[in-house]
């Protein structure tokens, strides 16, 4: 038996810990710096604010309803997440974190579902009181069913944050109300195929014979089918790798200096490459871009997709490609306002097919990379890196933003003040 612990509106919840005045108020958190909504409080959801909508498109609602907005504060969210995970790990030997705000607990040591439910209710109280974040639990025999259960735990207040799928009646009832396109592990293309076959809900899919799932969606789909039918067969490590990894920023003022632009983009590059290595993946393609402002008379862009003959996660190799692109396409006297890097065509780093004409010493590159990662994980973000990542004070000021909350738990000068 598993339980999925899923934080409710996680980024908003983190902000509210230190801003109790924002309880019951509509709050949104915006992405890094490009201003799309990435988290919403329930109040903001009720006002019809959609996930991913650019902030400038909701200016009317913001003014009308007094929606409070924050820039993402990852130092805070990361620390609060770590606290929650640490607390959860006291209750299971096998905690499998799936994302910054979700983790599976193996609760097979509980003697029955009633005990598991009581335990989850207790953990929920502990996290709410001790950390200040509200979480939901979905308890079920498989991870895919946990995800379904946690959806209902959030949706209906009557569950009080803990929903159980522990018998066939409950399973069928839940799957009947669960649209097929929300089922975990079923991608967009698979949804289209299944809809053509007349499948609308998770139950429609789970009720077909196994051979249907196998023929339509192959092994991953068959595993999802099994999990929906109560057979535990997917481990977190097999869950889909992220399809793309992005780092992009809007600069406060347009950047005309080539060195500064290179420094900023090199840091984005080191950042995405590190994320890629952390999930044990490599990428085959990198999209590099830098634009002038939309309001600049002439839109000038640096933009290239680079394809690597041998998939890679090596910062140095990505940097080489990035810098030669910027150097070839950069124009003087041009204020670049927004820049970024997207890695895609991502696959697992095991069994890389080396290109016949590969000239890199990959073994040596990897050793260097591992050494750098080890130092950075101890000394902090990008403590060691390649020359072009070197950050001048000027470069660090390129993308300061106003609406970000203090680093309440990770920087001593940012802790809260008690007036007395």
């Amino acid at each position, binding site marked *: 038996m598993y339980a999925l612990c899923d934080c409710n509106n996680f980024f908003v919840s983190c902000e509210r810990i230190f801003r*109790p005045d924002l309880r019951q108020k509509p709050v949104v958190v915006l992405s890094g710096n490009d201003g799309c909504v990435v988290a919403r409080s329930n109040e903001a959801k009720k006002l019809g604010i959609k996930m991913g909508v650019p902030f400038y498109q909701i200016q009317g609602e913001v003014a009308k309803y007094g929606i409070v907005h924050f820039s993402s504060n990852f130092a805070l969210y990361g620390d609060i997440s770590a*606290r929650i995970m*640490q607390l959860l790990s006291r209750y299971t030997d096998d905690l499998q974190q799936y994302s910054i705000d979700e983790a599976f607990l193996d609760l097979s040591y509980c003697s029955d579902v009633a005990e598991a439910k009581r335990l989850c209710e207790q953990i929920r109280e*502990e996290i709410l*009181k*001790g*950390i200040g974040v509200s979480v939901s639990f979905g308890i079920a025999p498989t991870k895919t069913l946990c995800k379904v259960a946690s959806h209902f735990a959030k949706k209906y207040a009557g569950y009080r944050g803990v929903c159980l799928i522990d018998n066939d009646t409950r399973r069928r009832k839940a799957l009947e109300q669960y649209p097929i396109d929300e089922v975990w592990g079923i991608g967009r293309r698979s949804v289209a195929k299944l809809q053509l076959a007349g499948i609308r809900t998770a139950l429609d899919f789970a009720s077909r014979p196994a051979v249907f799932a196998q023929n339509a969606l192959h092994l991953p789909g068959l595993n999802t089918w099994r999990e929906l039918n109560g057979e535990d067969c997917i481990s977190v490590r097999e869950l889909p790798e992220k399809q793309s990894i992005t780092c992009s920023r809007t600069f406060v003022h347009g950047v005309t200096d080539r060195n500064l632009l290179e420094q900023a983009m090199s840091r984005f590059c080191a950042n995405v490459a590190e994320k890629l290595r952390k999930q044990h993946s490599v990428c085959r393609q990198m999209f590099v871009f830098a634009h002038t402002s939309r309001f600049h008379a002439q839109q000038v862009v640096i933009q290239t997709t680079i394809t690597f003959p041998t998939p890679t996660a090596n910062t140095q190799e990505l940097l080489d490609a990035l810098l030669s692109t910027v150097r070839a396409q950069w124009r003087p006297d041009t204020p670049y306002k927004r820049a970024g890097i997207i890695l895609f065509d991502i696959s697992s780093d095991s069994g890389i097919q080396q290109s016949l004409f590969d000239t890199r010493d990959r073994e040596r590159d990897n050793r260097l990379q591992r050494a750098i990662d080890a130092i950075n994980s101890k000394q902090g973000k990008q403590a060691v890196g390649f020359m072009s990542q070197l950050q001048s004070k000027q470069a660090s000021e390129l993308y300061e933003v106003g609406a970000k909350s203090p680093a309440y738990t990770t920087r001593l000068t940012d802790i*809260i003040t*008690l007036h*007395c």
Partner: protein
Amino acid sequence: MNISMDQKLTDITPAEQSGPELLLAEKIHAGFPSPAPDYTERIDITREIVQHPETTFYARIDGDSMQDAGIFSGDLVVIDRSLSANNGDYVAAYIDGEFTIKEFQNDPKDNCAWLIPHNDKYPKIRVNEENAFIIWGVITHTIHAIKHPY
């Protein structure tokens, strides 16, 4: 030059002069694992102060309403949110839009609670449902710097 180096060498080899007994004793010990590794961990004051790392937060004091309890402006306080406030505990409370630190007293007979300052200049604060009031956490320690080493 050479002479002075020789002198230095003899100066730093006192073991040879201290007799065979000591040398023998050291040889015997060499066969055993050094006890040192068991004792290399230094005192970690955080571990003494922080009982529940997941639920512990820090705050800075601003004001003098708790000075008679030895809590001064500029002090650092340690807050454990996992604890429940009992009568007499010092709490970090959120009331009407502001974080504050006071002694907590529950008064169920009067259907209210009291936030009590420790400075005669300030009145007690009565709180009931009408206030936007939260006990944010319980204070476990205050850290008062006597001298800043920098």
